[in-house]
């Protein structure tokens, strides 16, 4: 961190409007994520969260508006692990490094280090994805994303398919990694409580078309966000009428 410049890097999405055919999915979205921030995008399904994240990941061009990403390395983690079924754990973790042209030896060393960091046991290193449990697979995917030493991490509901225990474990793991690697994170979730646990700032999206209706700045540092705080904050957030209506409008 010695050579950190004075001007902070940012991920900035400005004036984003996007339509699939005639269906307007996003309207006038402005999001800025500053270096070191953890920002959550929360909203009901179908509010365009994933579309927004795809734009941030440079997978999709918005109809209007601009995306600026100053970070030199960006990595993504999806709801499904998206591991290569024909590659073993270490090869999967090292795949991003292979893309970067890192040599075989260094690749393997870094993969072993990453695998250990995310809590994989040595006997899992040579397994194929179908031999791993869901939680393990998501750990491998996280290790693969972190192995390329990203500055910005984009997460698309990475824990929503896991049970509560595994989810909590991976939350802790993620917060540790964020702290140690001073990562900047933009993640999407439909789980408000998860957002309260992980994020410094929460943006609530409403659907039809997707737009930001509420912004909440987390009052506590990550290690002080205990279960009571998570519950009361989530309840308080849901008491906001805009948040409540954002989540209930999809039922109608």
């Amino acid at each position: 961190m010695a050579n950190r410049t004075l001007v902070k890097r940012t991920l900035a999405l400005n004036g984003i409007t996007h339509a699939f055919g005639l269906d307007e999915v996003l309207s006038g979205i402005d999001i800025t994520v500053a270096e070191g921030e953890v920002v959550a995008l929360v909203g009901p399904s179908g509010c365009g969260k994933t579309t927004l994240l795809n734009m941030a990941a440079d997978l999709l061009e918005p109809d209007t508006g601009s995306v600026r990403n100053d970070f030199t390395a960006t990595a993504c983690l999806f709801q499904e692990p998206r591991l290569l079924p024909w590659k073993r754990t270490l090869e999967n973790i090292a795949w991003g490094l292979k893309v970067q042209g890192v040599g075989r030896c260094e690749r393997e060393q870094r993969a072993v280090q990453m695998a250990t960091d995310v809590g994989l046991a040595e006997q899992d290193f040579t397994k194929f994805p179908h031999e791993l449990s869901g939680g393990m697979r998501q750990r491998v995917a996280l290790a693969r994303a972190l192995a390329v030493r990203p500055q910005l991490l984009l997460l698309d509901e990475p824990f929503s398919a896991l049970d509560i225990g595994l989810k909590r474990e991976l939350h802790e793991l993620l917060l540790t990694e964020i702290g140690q690697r001073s990562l900047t994170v933009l993640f999407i979730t439909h789980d408000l409580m998860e957002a309260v646990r992980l994020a410094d700032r929460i943006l609530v999206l409403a659907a039809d078309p997707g737009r930001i209706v509420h912004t909440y700045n987390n009052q506590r540092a990550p290690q002080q966000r205990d279960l009571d705080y998570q519950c009361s904050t989530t309840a308080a957030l849901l008491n906001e009428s805009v948040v409540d209506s954002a989540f209930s409008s999809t039922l109608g």
Partner: protein
Amino acid sequence: MQWIRAALAYLWSGWGALASILLFFALWDYGNLIYGSFILPSPQETVGRLIELFQEGTAGPELLITSYRSLIGFSIALLVGSGAGILAGLSMTTAMAARPLITILIGVPPIAWIVLALLWFGATDSTPIFTIAVTTLPITFAAGVQGARTLDGDLREMARTFKAPWWLAFIDVHLPHILSYLFPAWITALGMSWKVVVMAELLASNSGVGAGLATARVNLDTSATMAWIVAIVGALLIAEYGILEPIKRRLEQWRDGE
């Protein structure tokens, strides 16, 4: 160590196959008891005749010629068909356009191709090679199209987020998937090429196993006919279980236990 164990396991798995082959020989021998040697020579007679053919110096060279033609034709179908199939499968339009063409090509009887090839190339090596290539190509092509059409969009997106160059994405992300479609098609195409080559030789050549069969027919030599059949089937079994199947197992290790 690991590959030695894999090789032993592979050989061990051959017992079941051996048992069913022996059962087949037993039924064959029973048929010989009922119909007599002129209609259906016994396995012993057939193998004896085959050994005789080898000793005369006919079987060896003829088998080599046939294998050469068949493998060249098969390789053309394998490379051109699979490659073109994958390319066609990458686009919805070409995949749709290719479908009826494949059906038409598969529908043309191999025997018709032989007649055409004979008119075009005469009684040369090109006739059986062309016939094999043109009859097996639709099979490998269709498999290539299927493999490329069913690529996993999620994995492709993952590769894009890592900014993977197209060739690396192809080798690591797409090819293993496509191969799982191609391999069974290659095995089918190989079997087909072995059948077609004999037919083409019988009608359009004076060398190879097919020509040997033609001679046996003229001489009403049933045991030689059976000997040639055993030789050609044996060669196919060696090609399939000695070469293609082990490669397939090696490449599809990741499916174990799925």
